């Protein structure tokens, strides 16, 4: 029984991590708390569902479409909203408020286009087969989510650590101005980050829409709150932290449902968050950037 719970916790944790990776990427590189990430995530789920239902496409095509669609959406948000604020050197609160506006626009657009009620992916979008191994059941989808999130984390971490691109991004995270003086195409990389984070958010939306088997225009909001918790637990802007934060939260939630009852689930989440912030404000993995005069 406990084995099964642990597998559930693993897949739930990976779901959170998947969402948090994009969120933390934006914070790490752009320094923006992107409160529109939940709405982008929701957009991905709806975009995939629409093309899959209308053109009877398979799941991989839906995922690809969500990736491209949300990536372009992220690019558009960056171009229209974040770039002008960057150009003006606005304090970090201001872009955050702008992203609230973006989230309201996206959420209400979805509500207008698709209605407020729950929707599902078309029947048979994903096989319901379960794999059984040593008494533990796991669905194909869960396995997919777990593998995908780990691979994604590994790719992102390697890219950031080992490639020229990653070095440039890390330099920008330290100081965009210094990076610019070193000849790094700062604006281009900001766009790239916005594209990648939003595209990943869209893919996460599709997978999680399938996982919970229900989509609604506001599905991104609770995810956003969890995502913030995950990113803080792990350390803001840290890829590894997002993964471990997600897993940590997944395990904490599943175990607290198991031992304390389901109503205490969120209390455990945010209680933990509160504790981590008090004891280790930089998160479990993060490095706090505090500039003293």
């Amino acid at each position, binding site marked *: 029984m406990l084995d099964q719970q642990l597998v559930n916790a693993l897949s739930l944790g990976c779901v959170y991590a998947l969402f948090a990776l994009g969120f933390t990427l934006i914070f790490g590189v752009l320094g923006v708390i992107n409160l529109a990430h939940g709405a982008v995530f929701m957009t991905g789920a709806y975009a995939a569902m629409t093309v899959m239902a209308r053109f009877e496409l398979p799941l991989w095509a839906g995922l690809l479409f969500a990736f491209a669609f949300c990536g372009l959406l992220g690019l558009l948000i960056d171009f229209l909203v974040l770039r002008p604020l960057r150009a003006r050197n606005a304090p970090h609160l*201001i872009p955050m*408020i702008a992203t609230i*506006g*973006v989230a309201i626009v996206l959420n209400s657009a979805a509500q207008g286009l698709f209605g407020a009620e729950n929707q599902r992916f078309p029947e048979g979008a994903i096989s319901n087969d379960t794999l059984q191994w040593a008494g533990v059941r796991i669905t194909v989808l869960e396995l997919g989510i777990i593998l995908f999130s780990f691979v994604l984390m590994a790719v992102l971490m390697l890219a950031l650590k080992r490639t020229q691109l990653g070095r440039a991004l890390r330099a920008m995270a330290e100081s965009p101005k210094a990076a610019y003086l070193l000849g790094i195409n700062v604006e281009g990389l900001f766009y790239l980050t916005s594209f990648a984070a939003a595209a990943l958010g869209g893919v996460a939306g599709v997978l999680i829409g399938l996982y919970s088997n229900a989509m609604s225009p506001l599905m991104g909001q609770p995810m956003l*709150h969890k995502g913030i918790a995950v990113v803080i637990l792990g350390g803001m802007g840290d890829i590894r932290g997002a993964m471990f934060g997600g897993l940590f939260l997944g395990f904490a939630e599943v175990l607290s449902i198991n031992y304390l009852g389901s109503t205490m689930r969120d209390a455990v989440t945010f209680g933990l*968050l509160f504790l981590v*912030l008090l004891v280790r404000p930089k998160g479990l993995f993060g490095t706090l950037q505090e500039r*003293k005069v």
Partner: protein
Amino acid sequence: MMEALSTFWVIHSNLILSLGTNALLALSIWLTLSCGMLAMANAAFMGIGAYTSAILTMQFGWPFPAVILAGMLAPMLAALIIGLPTLRLSGVYLAMATLAFGEVVRIVIINTELLTGGIGGIAGIPTSTEWWHMLLAVVCALFVLWRMRRSKVGRAFEAIREDETAAGLMGINVGANKMLAFILGAALAGLAGTLNAHLTFMIDPKEFGFDRGVEILTMAIFGGIGSLVGPVLGSAIFTLLPTVLSPLADFRLMVNGVVLVLIVLFLPNGIWDPARFKQWFGRKQGART
């Protein structure tokens, strides 16, 4: 004429009085922002005030003035307790810790069903709040804050906002002043919660969650935090916008979002920005930049 006015009042009185609630909330976060802290527990403090007052009114039959007092004291006490460990955090981390505290409060309310009615909330709260209570509360809050700005405490807040380290070196007790701002902000939010609970007939935990917290911050920033006028103006516009836009039906919220983005993009210091007014309407000799 009188009749038209009174029907107008019947239809819109709740909206007009919620202007007062939101103004108090925006001022409560302005207070912490003016001390350089991004604390986002105001929705939770509002909730603590609302629940304390509703329970005291309904289960213990306290008179309204005592209830208001208690509705302010309870969040102040909560602020003192959570402020001790959290206020040493700075920037985004303080925002996140206070948001997390807000979620914990919401969940505690949901789980103490005997006292708070759980997820369904409390209904049937007597509507004791009159329009002049609200007006008086806003005017008093504005007066106190306005006097405070020009006092030693207000200047200390400003010094801390500009540079914490330098303020500390000048002999300002940074911790105590931050705590004071936090507690006073909590009192204002609690007042807003109390008056609002005795106005809307019912309260439920959803009202005091994450979205409310973000909304309060948005109202203040939207109006501009450079002066006391900003938060009040921002909260008024933010409250009225959905009603003004109601002919747009489904696209109302969407336009609301677009307006928010546009204001952030084109009016960086909020709507009420004295420096900009000077630039626009002042003498022309100072060339525009």
